[in-house]
Protein backbone atom coordinates (compact mmCIF):
# COMPACT_ATOMS: atom_id res chain seq x y z
CA UNK A 1 0.00 0.00 0.00
CA UNK A 2 1.31 3.44 -0.97
CA UNK A 3 0.90 5.98 1.81
CA UNK A 4 0.56 8.99 -0.51
CA UNK A 5 -2.36 7.28 -2.30
CA UNK A 6 -4.10 6.49 0.99
CA UNK A 7 -3.65 10.11 2.11
CA UNK A 8 -5.05 11.40 -1.18
CA UNK A 9 -8.04 9.09 -0.74
CA UNK A 10 -8.46 10.26 2.85
CA UNK A 11 -8.54 13.91 1.75
CA UNK A 12 -11.20 13.20 -0.86
CA UNK A 13 -13.26 11.18 1.62
CA UNK A 14 -13.11 14.01 4.18
CA UNK A 15 -14.28 16.50 1.55
CA UNK A 16 -17.10 14.21 0.48
CA UNK A 17 -18.26 13.64 4.06
CA UNK A 18 -18.02 17.32 5.00
CA UNK A 19 -20.34 18.12 2.06
CA UNK A 20 -22.85 15.46 2.99
CA UNK A 21 -25.28 17.59 4.98
CA UNK A 22 -27.52 14.67 5.88
CA UNK A 23 -24.58 12.74 7.32
CA UNK A 24 -23.41 15.71 9.37
CA UNK A 25 -26.92 16.33 10.65
CA UNK A 26 -27.08 12.67 11.68
CA UNK A 27 -23.82 12.94 13.61
CA UNK A 28 -25.32 15.67 15.78
CA UNK A 29 -29.02 14.87 15.74
CA UNK A 30 -29.01 11.12 16.33
CA UNK A 31 -27.25 11.14 19.73
CA UNK A 32 -29.33 14.13 20.83
CA UNK A 33 -32.52 12.38 19.78
CA UNK A 34 -31.54 9.15 21.56
CA UNK A 35 -30.61 11.01 24.76
CA UNK A 36 -33.84 13.00 24.64
CA UNK A 37 -35.77 9.73 24.39
CA UNK A 38 -33.93 8.43 27.47
CA UNK A 39 -34.68 11.58 29.49
CA UNK A 40 -38.35 11.56 28.54
CA UNK A 41 -39.06 7.86 28.99
CA UNK A 42 -36.66 6.44 31.57
CA UNK A 43 -37.06 6.92 35.34
CA UNK A 44 -34.19 7.55 37.73
CA UNK A 45 -35.13 4.70 40.10
CA UNK A 46 -32.38 2.14 40.72
CA UNK A 47 -32.55 -1.18 38.91
CA UNK A 48 -30.48 -4.32 39.26
CA UNK A 49 -28.54 -5.43 36.21
CA UNK A 50 -25.96 -8.05 35.43
CA UNK A 51 -22.54 -7.24 34.08
CA UNK A 52 -21.93 -9.93 31.52
CA UNK A 53 -18.19 -9.45 31.32
CA UNK A 54 -17.52 -9.35 35.08
CA UNK A 55 -17.45 -12.79 36.81
CA UNK A 56 -20.12 -13.65 39.37
CA UNK A 57 -17.63 -13.94 42.23
CA UNK A 58 -16.82 -10.26 41.72
CA UNK A 59 -20.34 -9.34 42.82
CA UNK A 60 -20.69 -5.68 43.55
CA UNK A 61 -23.66 -5.80 45.89
CA UNK A 62 -26.70 -8.03 46.42
CA UNK A 63 -29.51 -7.39 43.96
CA UNK A 64 -32.56 -5.49 45.13
CA UNK A 65 -34.90 -7.77 43.24
CA UNK A 66 -34.50 -11.46 42.40
CA UNK A 67 -33.26 -12.04 38.89
CA UNK A 68 -34.46 -15.01 36.89
CA UNK A 69 -32.66 -16.84 35.40
CA UNK A 70 -29.91 -16.62 37.97
CA UNK A 71 -27.11 -14.34 36.86
CA UNK A 72 -23.73 -15.71 35.91
CA UNK A 73 -22.05 -12.32 35.97
CA UNK A 74 -21.71 -9.76 38.72
CA UNK A 75 -24.77 -7.65 39.45
CA UNK A 76 -25.08 -4.02 40.39
CA UNK A 77 -27.74 -1.49 41.24
CA UNK A 78 -27.73 1.75 39.31
CA UNK A 79 -30.23 4.38 38.19
CA UNK A 80 -32.19 3.09 35.22
CA UNK A 81 -31.74 6.38 33.35
CA UNK A 82 -27.97 6.27 33.77
CA UNK A 83 -27.77 2.69 32.47
CA UNK A 84 -30.04 3.50 29.56
CA UNK A 85 -27.97 6.58 28.67
CA UNK A 86 -24.75 4.55 28.44
CA UNK A 87 -26.10 1.81 26.22
CA UNK A 88 -28.09 4.27 24.13
CA UNK A 89 -24.90 6.28 23.56
CA UNK A 90 -23.32 3.15 22.04
CA UNK A 91 -26.40 2.57 19.87
CA UNK A 92 -26.50 6.18 18.63
CA UNK A 93 -22.79 6.27 17.82
CA UNK A 94 -23.01 2.83 16.26
CA UNK A 95 -25.81 3.92 13.95
CA UNK A 96 -23.90 7.07 12.93
CA UNK A 97 -20.67 5.13 12.34
CA UNK A 98 -22.28 2.35 10.32
CA UNK A 99 -24.31 4.73 8.15
CA UNK A 100 -21.31 6.98 7.42
CA UNK A 101 -19.14 3.97 6.57
CA UNK A 102 -21.84 2.53 4.35
CA UNK A 103 -22.19 5.85 2.53
CA UNK A 104 -18.44 6.18 1.95
CA UNK A 105 -18.08 2.76 0.37
CA UNK A 106 -21.40 2.34 -1.40
CA UNK A 107 -22.05 5.80 -2.83
CA UNK A 108 -20.42 6.66 -6.17
CA UNK A 109 -19.23 3.05 -6.47
CA UNK A 110 -18.84 3.38 -10.25
CA UNK A 111 -16.49 6.35 -9.82
CA UNK A 112 -14.54 4.37 -7.25
CA UNK A 113 -14.24 1.51 -9.73
CA UNK A 114 -12.93 3.98 -12.29
CA UNK A 115 -10.34 5.12 -9.79
CA UNK A 116 -9.16 1.51 -9.41
CA UNK A 117 -8.88 1.24 -13.20
CA UNK A 118 -6.58 4.29 -13.04
CA UNK A 119 -4.29 2.49 -10.63
CA UNK A 120 -5.61 3.11 -7.12
CA UNK A 121 -5.48 -0.09 -5.05
CA UNK A 122 -8.60 -1.19 -3.13
CA UNK A 123 -6.53 -1.38 0.07
CA UNK A 124 -5.54 2.29 -0.37
CA UNK A 125 -9.17 3.24 -0.87
CA UNK A 126 -10.35 1.37 2.22
CA UNK A 127 -7.43 2.66 4.33
CA UNK A 128 -7.93 6.27 3.23
CA UNK A 129 -11.68 6.24 3.75
CA UNK A 130 -11.32 4.50 7.09
CA UNK A 131 -8.86 7.17 8.21
CA UNK A 132 -11.30 9.91 7.17
CA UNK A 133 -14.13 8.12 8.92
CA UNK A 134 -12.01 7.82 12.08
CA UNK A 135 -11.56 11.60 12.15
CA UNK A 136 -15.31 12.22 11.84
CA UNK A 137 -16.14 9.54 14.40
CA UNK A 138 -13.57 10.92 16.85
CA UNK A 139 -15.48 14.21 16.75
CA UNK A 140 -18.84 12.41 17.10
CA UNK A 141 -17.51 10.37 20.05
CA UNK A 142 -16.26 13.58 21.66
CA UNK A 143 -19.71 15.19 21.30
CA UNK A 144 -21.45 12.17 22.85
CA UNK A 145 -18.87 11.98 25.64
CA UNK A 146 -19.47 15.65 26.39
CA UNK A 147 -23.23 15.10 26.70
CA UNK A 148 -23.04 11.90 28.72
CA UNK A 149 -22.10 13.46 32.13
CA UNK A 150 -25.46 15.24 32.07
CA UNK A 151 -27.12 11.85 32.49
CA UNK A 152 -24.49 9.62 34.14
CA UNK A 153 -22.02 10.23 36.94
CA UNK A 154 -19.54 7.77 35.47
CA UNK A 155 -17.09 5.95 37.72
CA UNK A 156 -14.43 6.13 34.98
CA UNK A 157 -15.35 8.48 32.15
CA UNK A 158 -12.19 7.58 30.21
CA UNK A 159 -13.23 3.92 30.04
CA UNK A 160 -16.73 4.93 28.98
CA UNK A 161 -15.24 7.01 26.16
CA UNK A 162 -13.11 3.99 25.21
CA UNK A 163 -16.31 1.94 25.00
CA UNK A 164 -17.93 4.60 22.82
CA UNK A 165 -14.90 4.66 20.54
CA UNK A 166 -14.90 0.87 20.28
CA UNK A 167 -18.61 0.94 19.52
CA UNK A 168 -17.98 3.42 16.71
CA UNK A 169 -15.10 1.29 15.37
CA UNK A 170 -17.06 -1.99 15.41
CA UNK A 171 -20.03 -0.42 13.66
CA UNK A 172 -17.88 1.46 11.14
CA UNK A 173 -16.30 -1.86 10.19
CA UNK A 174 -19.77 -3.38 9.88
CA UNK A 175 -20.90 -0.48 7.68
CA UNK A 176 -17.88 -0.93 5.42
CA UNK A 177 -18.58 -4.66 5.14
CA UNK A 178 -22.22 -4.08 4.22
CA UNK A 179 -21.14 -1.36 1.76
CA UNK A 180 -18.69 -3.77 0.14
CA UNK A 181 -21.25 -6.59 -0.04
CA UNK A 182 -24.33 -4.79 -1.35
CA UNK A 183 -24.73 -2.37 -4.24
CA UNK A 184 -28.22 -1.16 -3.40
CA UNK A 185 -28.31 1.56 -0.77
CA UNK A 186 -31.73 0.52 0.53
CA UNK A 187 -30.47 -2.99 1.35
CA UNK A 188 -27.42 -1.51 3.04
CA UNK A 189 -29.44 0.92 5.15
CA UNK A 190 -31.87 -1.82 6.17
CA UNK A 191 -29.06 -4.11 7.26
CA UNK A 192 -27.39 -1.34 9.24
CA UNK A 193 -30.60 -0.28 10.95
CA UNK A 194 -31.52 -3.90 11.70
CA UNK A 195 -28.21 -4.78 13.32
CA UNK A 196 -27.85 -1.58 15.29
CA UNK A 197 -31.44 -1.75 16.52
CA UNK A 198 -31.33 -5.43 17.44
CA UNK A 199 -27.83 -5.59 18.83
CA UNK A 200 -26.71 -2.26 20.29
CA UNK A 201 -30.19 -0.82 20.77
CA UNK A 202 -31.92 -3.81 22.32
CA UNK A 203 -30.01 -6.99 23.17
CA UNK A 204 -27.02 -5.25 24.75
CA UNK A 205 -29.25 -3.28 27.10
CA UNK A 206 -28.06 -4.53 30.53
CA UNK A 207 -31.61 -4.34 31.86
CA UNK A 208 -32.79 -6.71 29.12
CA UNK A 209 -29.70 -8.89 29.41
CA UNK A 210 -30.39 -9.63 33.10
CA UNK A 211 -33.49 -11.62 32.20
CA UNK A 212 -32.52 -12.92 28.78
CA UNK A 213 -32.11 -16.56 27.82
CA UNK A 214 -29.45 -18.05 25.54
CA UNK A 215 -27.13 -15.25 26.49
CA UNK A 216 -24.29 -16.71 24.48
CA UNK A 217 -26.09 -15.35 21.41
CA UNK A 218 -26.05 -11.83 22.84
CA UNK A 219 -22.42 -12.16 23.91
CA UNK A 220 -21.47 -13.23 20.39
CA UNK A 221 -22.81 -10.07 18.75
CA UNK A 222 -20.53 -7.20 17.64
CA UNK A 223 -21.85 -4.56 20.06
CA UNK A 224 -21.38 -6.75 23.13
CA UNK A 225 -17.74 -5.81 23.73
CA UNK A 226 -18.15 -2.04 23.41
CA UNK A 227 -21.36 -2.05 25.48
CA UNK A 228 -19.63 -3.99 28.25
CA UNK A 229 -16.61 -1.68 28.24
CA UNK A 230 -18.86 1.37 28.53
CA UNK A 231 -21.23 -0.04 31.18
CA UNK A 232 -18.49 -1.60 33.32
CA UNK A 233 -16.48 1.63 33.05
CA UNK A 234 -19.50 3.75 33.97
CA UNK A 235 -20.51 1.89 37.11
CA UNK A 236 -17.54 -0.14 38.40
CA UNK A 237 -13.78 -0.19 38.53
CA UNK A 238 -13.44 -3.70 37.12
CA UNK A 239 -11.02 -4.37 34.28
CA UNK A 240 -12.31 -4.18 30.71
CA UNK A 241 -9.43 -5.85 28.88
CA UNK A 242 -11.47 -8.88 27.79
CA UNK A 243 -14.34 -6.79 26.40
CA UNK A 244 -11.86 -4.44 24.71
CA UNK A 245 -10.12 -7.36 23.00
CA UNK A 246 -13.48 -8.77 21.91
CA UNK A 247 -14.38 -5.40 20.36
CA UNK A 248 -11.04 -5.14 18.57
CA UNK A 249 -11.41 -8.73 17.34
CA UNK A 250 -14.80 -7.95 15.80
CA UNK A 251 -13.47 -4.73 14.28
CA UNK A 252 -10.43 -6.37 12.71
CA UNK A 253 -12.41 -9.38 11.45
CA UNK A 254 -15.08 -7.24 9.80
CA UNK A 255 -12.53 -4.84 8.33
CA UNK A 256 -10.58 -7.75 6.87
CA UNK A 257 -13.77 -9.23 5.41
CA UNK A 258 -14.73 -5.81 3.99
CA UNK A 259 -11.32 -5.43 2.37
CA UNK A 260 -11.47 -8.91 0.79
CA UNK A 261 -14.99 -8.40 -0.57
CA UNK A 262 -14.23 -4.87 -1.78
CA UNK A 263 -11.04 -6.05 -3.52
CA UNK A 264 -12.98 -8.80 -5.28
CA UNK A 265 -15.69 -6.34 -6.34
CA UNK A 266 -13.13 -3.87 -7.68
CA UNK A 267 -11.00 -6.48 -9.42
CA UNK A 268 -9.64 -5.38 -12.78
CA UNK A 269 -9.38 -8.01 -15.53
CA UNK A 270 -5.78 -8.61 -16.48
CA UNK A 271 -4.55 -7.55 -19.88
CA UNK A 272 -1.57 -8.87 -21.71
CA UNK A 273 1.12 -6.38 -22.65
Amino acid at each position, binding site marked *: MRLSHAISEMGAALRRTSRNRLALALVLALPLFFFAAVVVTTPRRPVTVELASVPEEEMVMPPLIPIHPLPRGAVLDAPQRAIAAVFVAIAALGAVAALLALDLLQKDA*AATRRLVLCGRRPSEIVAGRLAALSCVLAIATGCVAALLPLLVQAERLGVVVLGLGLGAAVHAAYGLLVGALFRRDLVGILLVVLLVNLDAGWLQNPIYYAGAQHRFVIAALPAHGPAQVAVVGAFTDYPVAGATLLSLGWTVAMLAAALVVFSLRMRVARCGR
Partner: protein
Amino acid sequence: MSAPVLLEGRGLARSFRRRPVLRGVSLSLHVGEIAGVVGENGAGKTTLLEVLAGRLGPDAGEVRVAGRLGYSPQQVELFDTLTAREHFRLFGGALGLAGWRTEAERWLDRLGFRQHADTLAREASGGTRQKLNLALALLGDPDVLLLDEPYAAFDWETYLVFWDLAAELRGRGKALLVVSHLVHDRSKLDVLWSLSGGVLRCV
Protein backbone atom coordinates in the same frame (compact mmCIF):
# COMPACT_ATOMS: atom_id res chain seq x y z
CA MET B 1 3.76 -2.27 -43.65
CA SER B 2 0.88 -1.51 -41.26
CA ALA B 3 1.33 0.61 -38.13
CA PRO B 4 2.11 -1.17 -34.83
CA VAL B 5 -0.84 -2.52 -32.86
CA LEU B 6 -1.66 -0.71 -29.61
CA LEU B 7 -4.72 -2.70 -28.57
CA GLU B 8 -5.73 -6.17 -29.59
CA GLY B 9 -8.70 -8.27 -28.60
CA ARG B 10 -8.78 -11.90 -29.66
CA GLY B 11 -11.81 -14.19 -29.57
CA LEU B 12 -13.58 -12.17 -26.89
CA ALA B 13 -16.73 -13.79 -25.55
CA ARG B 14 -18.95 -12.61 -22.76
CA SER B 15 -22.39 -13.75 -21.60
CA PHE B 16 -24.81 -12.44 -19.03
CA ARG B 17 -26.99 -15.12 -17.43
CA ARG B 18 -26.40 -17.46 -20.34
CA ARG B 19 -27.29 -14.73 -22.84
CA PRO B 20 -24.27 -14.35 -25.11
CA VAL B 21 -23.43 -10.70 -25.77
CA LEU B 22 -20.03 -11.08 -27.40
CA ARG B 23 -19.28 -14.16 -29.51
CA GLY B 24 -15.62 -14.38 -30.33
CA VAL B 25 -14.98 -10.72 -31.13
CA SER B 26 -11.52 -9.93 -32.46
CA LEU B 27 -10.18 -6.49 -33.27
CA SER B 28 -6.98 -4.53 -33.30
CA LEU B 29 -6.26 -0.84 -32.99
CA HIS B 30 -3.13 0.57 -34.55
CA VAL B 31 -0.97 3.59 -33.85
CA GLY B 32 -2.67 6.75 -35.17
CA GLU B 33 -6.03 5.14 -35.81
CA ILE B 34 -9.57 6.20 -34.95
CA ALA B 35 -12.03 3.35 -35.03
CA GLY B 36 -15.76 3.50 -34.47
CA VAL B 37 -18.20 0.90 -33.22
CA VAL B 38 -21.87 1.15 -34.10
CA GLY B 39 -24.74 -1.13 -33.24
CA GLU B 40 -28.30 -1.18 -32.02
CA ASN B 41 -29.20 -0.60 -28.39
CA GLY B 42 -28.26 -3.69 -26.42
CA ALA B 43 -25.92 -4.95 -29.15
CA GLY B 44 -23.06 -5.17 -26.64
CA LYS B 45 -21.00 -2.08 -27.51
CA THR B 46 -20.60 -1.04 -23.89
CA THR B 47 -19.80 -4.62 -22.86
CA LEU B 48 -17.10 -4.75 -25.54
CA LEU B 49 -15.52 -1.53 -24.27
CA GLU B 50 -15.74 -2.69 -20.66
CA VAL B 51 -14.00 -5.93 -21.56
CA LEU B 52 -11.30 -4.05 -23.48
CA ALA B 53 -10.87 -1.61 -20.57
CA GLY B 54 -10.54 -4.42 -18.02
CA ARG B 55 -13.72 -3.58 -16.15
CA LEU B 56 -15.22 -6.89 -17.15
CA GLY B 57 -13.34 -10.12 -17.49
CA PRO B 58 -14.11 -11.99 -20.72
CA ASP B 59 -15.49 -15.53 -20.54
CA ALA B 60 -13.07 -16.39 -23.32
CA GLY B 61 -10.40 -14.61 -25.32
CA GLU B 62 -7.73 -12.15 -24.34
CA VAL B 63 -6.91 -8.46 -24.52
CA ARG B 64 -3.42 -7.16 -25.15
CA VAL B 65 -2.55 -3.50 -24.64
CA ALA B 66 0.70 -1.74 -25.48
CA GLY B 67 0.93 1.36 -23.32
CA ARG B 68 -1.59 3.03 -21.05
CA LEU B 69 -5.31 2.95 -21.57
CA GLY B 70 -7.85 5.72 -20.95
CA TYR B 71 -11.54 4.90 -20.63
CA SER B 72 -14.56 7.17 -20.73
CA PRO B 73 -17.69 5.23 -19.69
CA GLN B 74 -21.08 5.81 -21.29
CA GLN B 75 -22.75 6.68 -17.99
CA VAL B 76 -20.93 9.59 -16.39
CA GLU B 77 -19.01 8.16 -13.42
CA LEU B 78 -18.04 10.91 -10.99
CA PHE B 79 -18.06 11.61 -7.28
CA ASP B 80 -21.15 13.74 -6.73
CA THR B 81 -19.68 15.85 -3.91
CA LEU B 82 -16.29 16.61 -5.48
CA THR B 83 -15.57 19.48 -7.85
CA ALA B 84 -13.97 19.11 -11.29
CA ARG B 85 -10.61 20.30 -9.96
CA GLU B 86 -10.81 17.82 -7.07
CA HIS B 87 -11.55 15.04 -9.56
CA PHE B 88 -8.41 15.94 -11.50
CA ARG B 89 -6.43 15.89 -8.29
CA LEU B 90 -7.84 12.53 -7.18
CA PHE B 91 -7.51 10.77 -10.53
CA GLY B 92 -4.17 12.44 -11.25
CA GLY B 93 -2.96 11.05 -7.94
CA ALA B 94 -4.23 7.57 -8.79
CA LEU B 95 -2.36 7.75 -12.11
CA GLY B 96 0.77 9.00 -10.35
CA LEU B 97 0.82 12.25 -12.32
CA ALA B 98 3.05 14.87 -10.76
CA GLY B 99 1.82 17.49 -13.23
CA TRP B 100 -1.91 16.92 -12.84
CA ARG B 101 -2.52 20.65 -12.22
CA THR B 102 -1.11 21.66 -15.61
CA GLU B 103 -3.10 18.95 -17.33
CA ALA B 104 -6.26 19.92 -15.49
CA GLU B 105 -5.90 23.53 -16.62
CA ARG B 106 -5.36 22.37 -20.19
CA TRP B 107 -8.51 20.25 -20.30
CA LEU B 108 -10.59 22.87 -18.52
CA ASP B 109 -9.68 25.30 -21.29
CA ARG B 110 -9.77 22.90 -24.19
CA LEU B 111 -13.16 21.42 -23.38
CA GLY B 112 -14.52 24.78 -22.21
CA PHE B 113 -15.63 24.19 -18.65
CA ARG B 114 -13.20 26.35 -16.70
CA GLN B 115 -16.10 28.36 -15.24
CA HIS B 116 -17.34 25.14 -13.62
CA ALA B 117 -13.98 23.97 -12.31
CA ASP B 118 -15.05 24.49 -8.71
CA THR B 119 -18.65 23.36 -9.05
CA LEU B 120 -19.64 20.11 -7.35
CA ALA B 121 -20.30 17.37 -9.89
CA ARG B 122 -23.87 16.91 -8.64
CA GLU B 123 -24.59 20.60 -9.28
CA ALA B 124 -23.03 20.69 -12.76
CA SER B 125 -25.04 20.43 -15.98
CA GLY B 126 -25.16 17.20 -17.96
CA GLY B 127 -22.79 18.63 -20.56
CA THR B 128 -20.24 19.74 -17.97
CA ARG B 129 -20.38 16.37 -16.27
CA GLN B 130 -19.72 14.68 -19.59
CA LYS B 131 -16.82 16.98 -20.33
CA LEU B 132 -15.27 16.06 -16.99
CA ASN B 133 -16.01 12.39 -17.67
CA LEU B 134 -14.06 12.65 -20.93
CA ALA B 135 -11.27 14.79 -19.45
CA LEU B 136 -10.57 12.16 -16.78
CA ALA B 137 -10.07 9.59 -19.54
CA LEU B 138 -7.61 11.95 -21.24
CA LEU B 139 -5.56 12.53 -18.06
CA GLY B 140 -2.01 11.24 -18.26
CA ASP B 141 -1.89 11.21 -22.06
CA PRO B 142 -2.96 7.57 -22.56
CA ASP B 143 -1.83 5.66 -25.65
CA VAL B 144 -5.22 4.05 -26.24
CA LEU B 145 -8.57 5.76 -25.63
CA LEU B 146 -11.81 3.81 -25.29
CA LEU B 147 -14.68 6.29 -25.50
CA ASP B 148 -18.24 5.10 -25.02
CA GLU B 149 -20.57 7.69 -26.59
CA PRO B 150 -18.32 10.47 -25.28
CA TYR B 151 -20.29 13.42 -26.64
CA ALA B 152 -23.97 12.50 -26.20
CA ALA B 153 -24.60 15.56 -23.98
CA PHE B 154 -22.22 17.96 -25.75
CA ASP B 155 -23.36 21.10 -27.54
CA TRP B 156 -22.39 21.43 -31.20
CA GLU B 157 -19.30 23.53 -30.48
CA THR B 158 -17.90 21.04 -27.98
CA TYR B 159 -18.75 18.21 -30.36
CA LEU B 160 -16.53 19.85 -32.98
CA VAL B 161 -13.81 20.44 -30.38
CA PHE B 162 -13.96 16.74 -29.57
CA TRP B 163 -13.29 15.70 -33.17
CA ASP B 164 -10.49 18.26 -33.48
CA LEU B 165 -8.98 16.76 -30.38
CA ALA B 166 -9.42 13.23 -31.73
CA ALA B 167 -7.62 14.19 -34.93
CA GLU B 168 -4.82 15.77 -32.93
CA LEU B 169 -4.42 12.63 -30.81
CA ARG B 170 -4.36 10.50 -33.94
CA GLY B 171 -1.60 12.74 -35.30
CA ARG B 172 0.38 12.07 -32.14
CA GLY B 173 0.16 8.32 -32.68
CA LYS B 174 -2.64 7.55 -30.23
CA ALA B 175 -5.37 5.01 -30.97
CA LEU B 176 -9.03 5.77 -30.31
CA LEU B 177 -12.04 3.49 -30.22
CA VAL B 178 -15.30 5.46 -30.20
CA VAL B 179 -18.77 4.05 -29.72
CA SER B 180 -21.06 6.21 -31.80
CA HIS B 181 -24.60 6.46 -33.07
CA LEU B 182 -24.17 9.38 -35.40
CA VAL B 183 -23.98 8.71 -39.13
CA HIS B 184 -21.98 11.84 -39.93
CA ASP B 185 -19.18 10.72 -37.60
CA ARG B 186 -18.19 8.15 -40.20
CA SER B 187 -16.10 10.57 -42.22
CA LYS B 188 -13.91 11.16 -39.17
CA LEU B 189 -13.12 7.47 -38.63
CA ASP B 190 -10.40 5.33 -40.15
CA VAL B 191 -12.26 2.11 -39.47
CA LEU B 192 -15.89 1.46 -38.68
CA TRP B 193 -17.15 -1.75 -37.12
CA SER B 194 -20.71 -2.83 -36.57
CA LEU B 195 -21.57 -5.03 -33.62
CA SER B 196 -24.59 -7.22 -34.17
CA GLY B 197 -25.58 -10.56 -32.66
CA GLY B 198 -22.37 -10.53 -30.64
CA VAL B 199 -20.23 -10.45 -33.79
CA LEU B 200 -18.10 -7.54 -34.98
CA ARG B 201 -18.05 -6.80 -38.70
CA CYS B 202 -16.18 -4.19 -40.69
CA VAL B 203 -18.58 -1.75 -42.36
